[in-house]
C-alpha cells in the first residue's frame, strides 16, 4: 500500500519517517522523496495490514497523509495501445494483454510522472488534474 506523506515547514527538520519506523516497528520503503528546506513530500510503501498504525503515527507527528489508489488515469478514447509508456515506467505499471491492448496496474504507480509527460497521445493524466 502506498502513502503520500507531506511535511510542512514546522516538522521539516525532524526525522519523521525514521521516528515512525522506530515507534511502529514497520519497515517503510521510501519509493520517492522530495525534501526541500521547509517542506517535503515522500511516497512510501508499507504492508497493507500496517497502514492504520503508520498513518496514525505520521499524523500525530504532524505530517499529512494520503492513501494512493488509482492515481493514474487512462483515457481510452485517446489511447491507441502504442505502448510507449511500457518500457519507460520504473514500476512496470503498464503491459500488454494477449490482444496487445494496454493494461495498467495503477497500484504500483509511484507518481513519477514520466508516462504522463511522454504519452504521444496525451492519454494519461494524474487523478484530479484532468
Amino acid at each position, binding site marked *: 500500500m502506498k502513502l503520500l506523506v507531506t511535511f510542512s515547514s514546522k516538522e521539516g527538520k525532524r526525522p519523521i519517517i525514521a521516528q515512525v519506523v522506530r515507534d511502529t516497528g514497520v519497515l517503510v520503503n521510501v519509493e520517492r522523496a522530495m525534501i526541500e528546506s521547509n517542506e517535503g513530500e515522500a511516497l512510501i510503501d508499507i504492508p497493507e495490514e500496517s497502514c492504520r498504525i503508520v498513518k496514525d503515527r505520521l499524523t500525530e507527528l504532524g505530517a499529512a497523509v494520503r492513501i494512493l489508489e488509482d492515481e493514474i488515469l487512462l483515457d481510452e478514447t485517446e489511447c*491507441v*495501445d*502504442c*505502448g*510507449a509508456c511500457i*518500457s*519507460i515506467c520504473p514500476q512496470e505499471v503498464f503491459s500488454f494483454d494477449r490482444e496487445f491492448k494496454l493494461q495498467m496496474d495503477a497500484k504500483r504507480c509511484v507518481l513519477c510522472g514520466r508516462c504522463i509527460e*511522454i504519452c*504521444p*497521445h496525451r492519454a494519461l493524466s494524474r487523478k484530479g488534474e484532468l
Partner: protein
Amino acid sequence: MRRTIHEINERIKEGNARVVTAEEMPQVVAELGEEGALAEVDVVTTGTFGAMCSSGCFFNFGHAEPPIRMEKVWLNDVEAYAGIAAVDAYLGATEKSTTREENYGGAHVIEDLVSGKSVELRAISRGTDCYPRRTLTTEILLENCNQAIMVNPRNGYQRYNAAVNSGDRVLHTYMGMLLPSRGNVTYSGAGVLNPLANDPHLRVIGPGVPCFLGGAEGMVVGEGTQASPATGFGTLMVTGDLKRMDPDYLRAATMTGYGVTLYVGLGVPIPVLDIETVRSTAVRDEDIWVDVVDYSVPSRNRPSLGQVTYAMLRSGRVEVGGEEVRASPLSSFRRARMVAGELKEWIESGRMTLALPTRPLDPDRRVEPMKETVEGPRVLQIMERRVATIGEDAPIRDAAAKLLKGETNHLPVVNGDGVLVGIVTTYDISKAVVNPGKGNDVRDIMRRKVVTTTPEEPVDVAIRKLEKYNISALPVVDKAMRVVGILTAMDLGKLIGGRWLK
C-alpha cells in the same frame, strides 16, 4: 499453379475470395505447404499503424468573395505551404502551431477536421488586380473544402531500427523517451503485418495499387521518399481522400521534446499470384531483423549495439550488450491488426478489388547520405587554444590565482600525465571559500563529471551540449583525454560574421 489478378477479382466480385491476414498466413503455409497455401489463399491483407511524420494533405478551400490569392495560410495557427495556386495549400503533419508549439500541429488540424470539428483558416496576400483581397479569416469544415487529398510522401517503412541510449542522460527523440545507460529499448513497426515486409521485392506493390489509408480506400502513388528496398528499408508514397477517413485510423501525437507527428493506419492487400507471393507473405516476426541503434551518438552513423527480431522486441525484453533490457513499441500492433482485419472484410465483401502496379517500382533503390559541399564549422576552428589547466593536487589558492590571471571562469584539472580528471569554476572556488572544510586541494572541490568536446566535433553538436547541460564551457580533449583547448560561450561569437572561415 499461378493465378491472374483478373481471376482474383472475379472471385472477389462473386464474394468467394479467400482472404487471410499477413499474421495468419505463416500458419496457413505451415499447415498446407506452399502449394497448398497457393491453392487456398487468394489475398493476404497487411496493416500497420504508427507514427508517420512524412504525411500531410492538399486542400482546395474554394474562392472567397472578393477573391484572395492566399500567399500565406494558417489552419488553427499552423502554417500550410501556399506556394501553389490561389486557394490551394499543403499542410504537413509535423508543422507546429505558432501559438501552441509542440502541443498542436498539422497532425492535430488533420485529426480535428476528420473528427468533424471546425478549424480557423487565416490567409494573407499582397493583393493583385485579379485577386484584390488582402486578408481572410474564416472557419472551415472538412465537408466544405472542395478537396482534401492526403498525400503522404513516406509511409509504411518496411522495418525500422530499434533505439537505445547508452549515454548518461535521458534523450527525447522521435523514437520516444530513451532512458540513460541502456535503460530501455523502443521500436516501431508492424513486423509480420507490414505491407512491404510481405512484398520485399516489390512484385505486387507499386503505383496504382489500392490500399487502406486512414480508414478510407486509398492508393499507392509509388516509391516513398528515402526508400531503400535494396537494404530492406522500402517506403511508400500513398494518397487518399481525407473526407472519407476515420479518426480511429488517423491520430495526432506529440513526441515530447521532439515534436508533432501523425499516427497513420495503412494496409495494402497482396494478391497471391504464385509461389513467390506465398513465400514472401509467409514472413514471420522471427524473420525480420533490425539493429538496435545507439541514439546517444549525435551522428548520421549511429553505432549498432546488436541485432534483434520483431519477435524478440514483441516479447518485451531484448538482450543488448549482454544485458536484458525492457523493450516497448511506439506503433500499435493492435491497430495494425485492426487495419489488416478491416481490409480483409472489405475484400471478402466485394467492396475493394485489387490491381497490379501500373509500372514496377525499383527494388534495387538504395538511400544515400547527403553529399555536403560546404562543411559546417568544427570546434577546432573556434576553440581557445591557450587554455590554463591545474594539477589535481594543487592548493585551491593556486586555482584561484590562475583563474584571475587567465581572466577565465573555467579551469580544467589534469593529472600528472596531463589527462583531464575534472574541472573547477570560479563558482566552485567561491563556494569553497564560503564553506571551507571539504579540503584544501583542487581535487577536493573539483567536479569529476566533465562534459567535453573534441576538435573535430561539429560546433552545432557542442552548442547542443552547452544548452543541454546548462554550462558555459567545454574542455576540448584529444583521443587520450589530454586537454588541447577550451570552448566557451564567448568563442561562439566568432561564428557571427563567419570569422571562423578564415
